Structure formats: structure tokens, C-alpha cells
């Protein structure tokens, strides 16, 4: 059998490539030039400020005052401990290190392809890790108690974000199922819950949780715990709507096939409907996670020193009063958030590919 091969693809040279892709039409040429101008106008000065003109060495603000047209990196370098631990007791910071290390190791293990025993590690991360992390961070069992008021920086940001993420997905799934339930009470309660939380801004929820609730109820709740609960409930309402979107995209035939084989409600949800619905909603679920991670910075307004809060504290420190301190702090915090969000986004993209690979024709 003689088979015709496809015609050879000739790789274009650089000049041809430029002409084909960047200057193919007059309009395209204008766009290219505008884009080049924007890069020159924004990126070049930023690089100049952040790297070329920046102060790198030194331990005080004097180093930064000498280089007044550049970023003040010594401010970050000197305070990097605060950005990670807040005001957590120095002698006890090893406890935070263990928690952050275990979290990072666990997440890497679960996200890297071809690691063995993922199910076991995942179970550990969902059961043992939260308990150990709680004891290590809070204290007890012979460990000195560290009041949550002294926590700060990355720990606060991560504790709020991870708790919110871990709680909002299961709660959101239950709410979404509840909203589609045929039982009027379950359905009504789910709708009321979802629409209540979606109707109020997170910042007012946080204020209510830490200030008003103790006032009304007469009990003093730990501020961090109140904030955690508020964030979890708030984000689960959003998650519910995302999951519901996925559920609605599943054809009726899937429910019918499951029912016809005698699978009960929970069996068909767990084995048939949810795996498909969650995969469909994955981009939006991760979008919600990313939004949640960034929303944790709102806790700085109710008196927590999360990453953003620590940056704000630093900028008002007279010892570091330079023209560039505040900007450097915000750029640094922004970069940390961006790195975390971007990793999540990339991992989700990878996961979509893995999940889709089996089913493609």
C-alpha cells in the first residue's frame, strides 16, 4: 500500500514570521506598534525602578535614600520574617515552619504527576494535617499557646485561604445539591442561604463576624475563628452556584441511566453526576479559589496583619520612611499573591488536560 504523505511544512524565516504575524495588514501593523509602545512605556520604567535603580544591599533606610528612584528592597529583606510569621514568638517559629513545610510538601506531592500513594497522602492532608497544624499553630499539648492576635503575614493569609478553600467546596456542593432538591424545605433553605451570602459584601460580613456577633450574642468568639467561619460560609455560597452550573450541564439521560440501574440518590450523585459536573466546573471552581485567596487580604481591614497588613505596618514605620517603601511593599505583596494565584491557575489547566484525556475521541 502506498500512502501519500502530507506536504512538508516549511518553517518560515524570522522576517517572514514577522510579516505574517505582526504586520500582515495595516490594522495589524498599527496594533503591533501600539503594543510595542505600551511595553516601552510601562515595562521598561518598571524594570528600571524594580531592578536597575533599586537598592539591594544595606540594612537601614539610608541605603534606600541613596537610590531614591528605585525600589527599596532592604525593607523587604529586613522584614521577611514578619511577612511570613507576623508577630509570632520568635522562639516558637519552628512550629510555623513545620506547618508551612508540610503544607508545601503535601501540595507538591499531590500536584506533581506520577507520585505514588496520592490517595493516602490526600487523606492525610484532609484529616491528620488540619489537626496537627491546628495544635502546632495554636499550642496546647505542652506547646506554649500563641494567641491568634500575634499571628500575621503569610500564616494568616494561608490559614484563612486554605480553610476557606477546604470548607467551601464540600459546603458548596451540598448547597448546590440542596438547591436542586425536590424537597421544598431543603431547597428553600439552600436558596435562602445562598442568596443571603451572595447579597452582602464580604467586608461587611467580616465586620459583623468580629464586632457585631459578640455584641449581640454576648459571647466573645476568637476573632480569627469568627473570620474563618465568615469566609467559609461566604465563599461556599459562591461555590454552590458554580457547582450548580456544572450540575445543570449534565444531560437528563445520565440521571435516568443511573436510576434505571437501581442506584440511589447519593450513589448516582457521587459516582455519576458529581464527577462530571465538577470537571465541567473546574475552571470556575479554581476561579473562585483564586478570588477567595485574594479576598483574604480584606482581613487586614478588620485588624489582622496578613501579608497586606504587614506591608501597611511597615510603610508607616518611621525607621523606613523613604519615598519608595510603600510602593516596594505593595509590589512585593502583589508578587506573592500573583505567584500563588498563577500556580493555582496553571495547575487547574494541567488538571483539565489530565481529566479530559481519557474521554476524548
Amino acid at each position, binding site marked *: 500500500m502506498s500512502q501519500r504523505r502530507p506536504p512538508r511544512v516549511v518553517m518560515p524565516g524570522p522576517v517572514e514570521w514577522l510579516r505574517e504575524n505582526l504586520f500582515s495588514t495595516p490594522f495589524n501593523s498599527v496594533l503591533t506598534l501600539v503594543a510595542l509602545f505600551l511595553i516601552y512605556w510601562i515595562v521598561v520604567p518598571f524594570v528600571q525602578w524594580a531592578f536597575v535603580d533599586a537598592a539591594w544591599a544595606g540594612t537601614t533606610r539610608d541605603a534606600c535614600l541613596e537610590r531614591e528612584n528605585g525600589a527599596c528592597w532592604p525593607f523587604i529583606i529586613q522584614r521577611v520574617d514578619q511577612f511570613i510569621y507576623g508577630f509570632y514568638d520568635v522562639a516558637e517559629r519552628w512550629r510555623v515552619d513545620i506547618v508551612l513545610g508540610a503544607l508545601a510538601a503535601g501540595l507538591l506531592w499531590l500536584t506533581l504527576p506520577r507520585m505514588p500513594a496520592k490517595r493516602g497522602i490526600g487523606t492525610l492532608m484532609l484529616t491528620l494535617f488540619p489537626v496537627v497544624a491546628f495544635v502546632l499553630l495554636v499550642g496546647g499539648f505542652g506547646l506554649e499557646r500563641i494567641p491568634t492576635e500575634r499571628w500575621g503575614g503569610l500564616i494568616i493569609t494561608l490559614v484563612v485561604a486554605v480553610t476557606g478553600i477546604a470548607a467551601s467546596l464540600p459546603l458548596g456542593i451540598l448547597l448546590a445539591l440542596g438547591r436542586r432538591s425536590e424537597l421544598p424545605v431543603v431547597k428553600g433553605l439552600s436558596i435562602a442561604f445562598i442568596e443571603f451570602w451572595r447579597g452582602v459584601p464580604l467586608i461587611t460580613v467580616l465586620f459583623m463576624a468580629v464586632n457585631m456577633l459578640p455584641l449581640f450574642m454576648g459571647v466573645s468568639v476568637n476573632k480569627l475563628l469568627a473570620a474563618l467561619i465568615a469566609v467559609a460560609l461566604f465563599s461556599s455560597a459562591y461555590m454552590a452556584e458554580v457547582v450548580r452550573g456544572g450540575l445543570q450541564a449534565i444531560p437528563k439521560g*445520565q440521571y435516568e441511566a443511573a436510576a*434505571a*440501574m*437501581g*442506584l440511589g440518590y447519593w450513589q448516582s450523585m457521587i459516582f*455519576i453526576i458529581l464527577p462530571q459536573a465538577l470537571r465541567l466546573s473546574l475552571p470556575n471552581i479554581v476561579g473562585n479559589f483564586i478570588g477567595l485567596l485574594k479576598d483574604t487580604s480584606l482581613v487586614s481591614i478588620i485588624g489582622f496583619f496578613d501579608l497586606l497588613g504587614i506591608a501597611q505596618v511597615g510603610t508607616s514605620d518611621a525607621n523606613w520612611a523613604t519615598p519608595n517603601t510603600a510602593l516596594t511593599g505593595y509590589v512585593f505583596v502583589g508578587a506573592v499573591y500573583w505567584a500563588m494565584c498563577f500556580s493555582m491557575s496553571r495547575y487547574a489547566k494541567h488538571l483539565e488536560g489530565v481529566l479530559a484525556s481519557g*474521554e476524548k475521541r
Partner: protein
Amino acid sequence: MSGNGANAVEIQGLNKWFKSFHVLKDVNLSVAHSERVVICGPSGSGKSTLIRCINALEPHQEGKIIVEGVPLSEEVGQVEAVRANVGMVFQQFNLFPHLTALENCTLAPMWVKKMPKKDAEKLAMQYLERVHIPEQANKYPGQLSGGQQQRVAIARALTMEPRIMLFDEPTSALDPEMIKEVLETMVELAETGMTMLVVTHEMGFARTVANRIVFMDFGEIVEVATPDEFFTNPKSERTKEFLSQILR
């Protein structure tokens, strides 16, 4: 093959409405054990709705349905008891796209019958062999042709070892060259003595396999006859008109 109750399916005075639309009008039908009944009729005549009532995918408002001696009622557990005896094959296959052919077949035995995974897989392979696609066991539905998907769907229904099989236009969504392989599988199944209710437009299948043909129109059973009578000597005008349209 004797089941519980005199007949495999007993339908008496069945009436069903979609909102105010009267979709099934006073339907009476008895299907004996091992009987093969083909239900045909123009689209919208209620034939699919009728067999979907038998395993309670559609609720009915009036009348009695008794399946293998179990009456379909609101009582807790009755619907499950009926569904345990009844397998169903759909027009659109309705395989679970995120599971392989084998996993599609093992899911219900494992979780409804609590069968150990090993046994369920053995059972599933046995039925995949019976529909002649054991080599596709580890493929996903999206990787199979329409005919192969429908055969997996038949195997999936059989793994629950039902006494009755319902087919809801099993070949209507298939390309012409795939119809034959699915029909052949159904003929083989008929030869095992399975009770079958088949909604189909495949008159060749009806002629050779059916014991009786039920013709429906506007939600009513117009005529019930043996294939011979049905095709050579139809009694009602509506049947004649339908046959003249479908057998050209």
C-alpha cells in the same frame, strides 16, 4: 423461566398526563414471561412514555403496573424492587462518559448489589463478551462507535441480571451500518428467553423476533397482533396508514 406472578408485566387502566396533556389513555397490556413485545407507532404516540412508566422513570397518575409480581406504588422500596428486575437501554445510550466500558458495567453490581470488585469485573467481562466487545473493556465511551456504545449499554443493563429488558428506540440514534450489530445482539438476547419490550421502528426486527406487536397512536393502544397478522392483515385504518408510510 418462571418469575413471580402470572405475567412479567401487567398494566391495567394506565393513565398519564404531562401537565394537562393526556399522554397515555387507559392502557391495558400484559406481557408473559419470555415474551418479546415490540411497540411501534408514530412519534408522539406515547410508546416511549409507556415503557418508561414500567421502571418508574416516569410517574403515572392512574392505573396499576405490576412488574414480576411487584406493584409499582409510592411505598418505600417498591420502585427499587421493580428496578432491580428491569434493565433499560436508551436511544442515546446514556453511558457514563467518565468511566470505561468495564467501569460502566461494574458500577451497579458493586454499589447496588454490593458485589466485590473482582466478582463484578468477572461478571461484566462475561456480558461484554456476550455483546462481542470484550476487547473494548478499557476504553471510554467517547472512544467507541455508536454501535459499540449501545452494545456496552446492553451489557451494562444485563450485569444487573434483570428479568425484563426495556429498549427505548435502541437503534434510532445510530448510523445505518451500526444498526445491524445492535439488532443482532438483541436477537441473541431474545434467544436466551429474556422478556423484552422494545420500542422501535425496525419492522424487520419486529417481524422476526416479536411474539406480539403493539401499535400505539395518540396515547392509546390501537391494535395488538402477532407479526403475521399485523403486517399482512392489519385491522384498524390507523395501523394501515402507519404501515403504508413506514413500509415503502
